[in-house]
């Protein structure tokens, strides 16, 4: 059997010796770091060692994981103080001979051990006005699908690489150190989501006022911490947040743009309409061609 050949390699995978892991154990009521000593093998990632810990020493050690390939964004933790995916952090990249600390994400409430309550992120997601495409043209109806140029979809595709590991949310000091800001601040993950929709070739909703008034875009002071921890290497600050800030500024304070809107009538949906597409406010209600049909719209877009 070929599996005998495989087994040979299991055995030959050299042990790099014992490692000391300081893992945070506890729950909402409190906890502390607990030291574990166990073996690590060549080529392993932190998650492998955590799994070995569960199988041999701490069967009830809580951690989230799914794909173990950097594609699902479940196993986020703070490794030696740095927010990272446990499945993509190779043991050999950490200082040899020193204890390795693994702690839960700091920005979210603890459930148990390395598992935190990330429901804040799912709540923010619900408040983002949903995708709202323009109608298909006659040509597109005939062709069967929308036409978009590759170059035009690539800007949004960058943000759609997001695996929702929430490391950017964890590291963002606006919420990391200020729990109270969570009600008024969407966070880098959701600025990237809004940027994706703003730059989506088909979407017709204007999200600028919401970004300014409800999602706290202005609170970001572009320290780029989010970009640094992104395992998908999305340039969140440069490509999402800064362009969004520019759009918001243009929309709110540019006198020429203001005059233009007065004279020409906007073609994008208003805040009120966009708001109405948010799932927390009921089913989508935007008429993409409202402006074309001359229906009056609210100000602020």
């Amino acid at each position: 059997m070929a599996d005998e050949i495989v087994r040979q390699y299991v055995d030959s995978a050299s042990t790099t010796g014992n490692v000391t892991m300081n893992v945070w154990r506890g729950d909402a009521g409190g906890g502390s770091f607990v030291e574990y000593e166990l073996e690590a093998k060549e080529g392993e990632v932190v998650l492998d060692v955590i799994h070995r810990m569960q199988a041999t020493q701490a069967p009830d050690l809580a951690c989230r994981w799914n794909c173990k390939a950097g594609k699902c964004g479940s196993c986020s933790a703070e490794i030696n103080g740095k927010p990272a995916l446990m499945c993509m952090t190779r043991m050999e990249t950490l200082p040899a001979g020193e204890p390795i600390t693994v702690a839960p994400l700091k920005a979210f409430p603890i459930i148990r051990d390395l598992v935190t309550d990330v429901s804040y992120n799912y709540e923010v997601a619900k408040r983002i006005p949903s995708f709202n495409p323009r109608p298909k043209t006659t040509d597109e109806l005939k062709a069967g699908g929308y036409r978009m140029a590759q170059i035009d979809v690539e800007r949004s595709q960058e943000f759609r690489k997001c695996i929702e590991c929430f490391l950017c949310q964890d590291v963002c000091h606006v919420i990391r150190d200020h729990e109270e800001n969570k009600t008024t601040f969407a966070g880098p993950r959701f600025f990237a989501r809004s940027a994706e929709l703003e730059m989506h070739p088909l979407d017709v909703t204007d999200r600028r006022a919401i970004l300014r008034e409800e999602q706290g875009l202005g609170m970001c002071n572009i320290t780029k911490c989010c970009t640094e921890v992104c395992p998908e290497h999305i340039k969140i600050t440069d490509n999402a947040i800064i362009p969004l800030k520019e759009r918001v500024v243009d929309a709110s304070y540019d006198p020429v743009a203001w005059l233009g809107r007065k004279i020409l009538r906007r073609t994008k949906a208003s805040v009120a309409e966009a708001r109405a597409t948010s799932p927390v406010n009921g089913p989508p209600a935007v008429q993409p061609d409202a402006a074309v049909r001359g229906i009056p719209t609210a100000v602020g877009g």
Partner: protein
Amino acid sequence: MPEYETHDFDVIVIGAGGAGLRAAIEANAKGLRTALVCKSLLGKAHTVMAEGGVAAALGNVYPEDNWEVHFRDTMRGGKMLNNWRMAQLHAQEAPDRVRELEEWGALFDRTKDGLILQRDFGGHRYARLAHVGDRTGLEMIRTLQQKAVADGVEVFMEVKVLRLLRDADGVVSGAVGYWRPSGEFVAFTAKSVVLATGGIGRSWMYTTNSWESTGDGVAMALWAGADAIEMECVQFHPTGMVWPMSVRGLLVTEAVRGDGGVLRNSDGERFMFDYIPEMFAAETADSEAEGDRWYDDHANNRRPPELLPRDEVARSINSEVKAGRGSPHGGVFLDIASRLSAEDIRRRLPSMYHQFKELAGVDITAEAMEVGPTCHYANGGVRVDADSTATTAPGLFAAGELAGGLHGSNRLGGNSLSDLIVFGRRAGIGAAEFAEGRTGRVTVDEGEIASTIEAALAPFERDGGESPYDVHHDLQTTMQDLVGIIRTGSELEEAMGKIEALEERAANVSASGGHQYNPGWNLATDLPSMLTVSRCVAQGALNRKESRGGHTREDFPRPDPEMGSVNFVQGIPTSTTDTSGAGGTPSVRSITITPVPIPVMPDELKALMELKEAY
């Protein structure tokens, strides 16, 4: 009586990968109160791992492509064991479902004309896979997740469902499980239930599957009186990573070969030319030169053998390694570096580039990858009606990987993602119609809820029992060694016995610690499903005395027309009162197996099998 909370819905969908999300969207759109229940956080399901693309005969790259050719490719890929009606519906409806994703916000890569780009994959006559680089599954799950949230589908995240519940007439009427974060129990009542829990790969040592793929859906369906078919046909994906051991089994997308990658042995030979089977000889290149020309000119050349269906490629790699022509770590070489520019590789296969760079220290733009077969996909699964996805248990519907039939004995790459959206939607409709037609108050057996909860908590009551991790490890070893890619009767007999012994051990495991987010306990509650599906695979494999698709018997190396004319249907008699299995479930010994003739294809579809333009 243990405490639990209750929720009532019209439809509950268990599983939130592509199929579950699509089903929930559909049932919800029909105005039914719909809940989506999933074992992990929303958006983390295994669909996220799908890489290469979603197969649909859009005809954007090759206008001559159409559903008939896709249907024919799917049937031939499955070695004709497929349910023809499912294959037909799948091929006909996939294009609309893909375009619908775009209307919901998905951003696929584009052709020069601005339409959805399609790429080549094994077994598909034309470039047919709509994709986003090599992260198509992520695009799909995010699109569906955002649509479901926008539509207001109620989601119960991190809930492990233990058992389905039936009313006094045997109609499936709900489910019981527990919240993983709190360890508290929850029961759902519903007029109909959709199962969309995905695969079974965690029973093997080397698999592309995440921890969630424990076969919960197939097992719960069997316990509730539904049937399963073709469970023996497990797909071993030809290209998983083999080194370091940490990532052994991790998926390397078929898109590498679709985009020009070739397989070589340690002698540097493109060995796949030595393994072209009779069935595909007429449509496969017999020289490297022709195979290479095909990438640019499909009309005048035949496809290279690296793009044979997955079962063929996986067996060939296995043979090369066994013959001593493997790579240093027991795989073969997959070379894209000498076939595409570094820039093209990074653009078309970005996540492969990062995966190898970060996890193996290999730069795939400069070096060959080492790859070998890895347990990937359940071709078989719960037996369903093609049109409605109704199982043989009333009130229960099933879609996605856990449903059997569409793929026959071997699935073509790209047909899984299209399966999810075509049959996910149909399951949503089927379940909604059943719910609308159901009258009277939905009732469940509270005694059944109580006994399920008690059985689930039993590992905490037992002192000094075995660790669930040890039982799981031994199950994985058993399945890997005895029910792997190449099987023999004697080893399968041995596996049957070992699974029974493992069941006894699983019934006596202990859990320590609290109920809250306790992975040891959670694993103990996953073991009953894993054992049930493992038994189904071993039993099916023992009975299918031939080699076909994903099922290869060393002692019966050829396809047998008689075997090829039946599906092996497995089930547990609804009259059973046996609770001697792990976690108070019916023992694996109670699973029966019966050969049932496969549905006969109508003549007009039979004619498509010989389509000239399909070659």
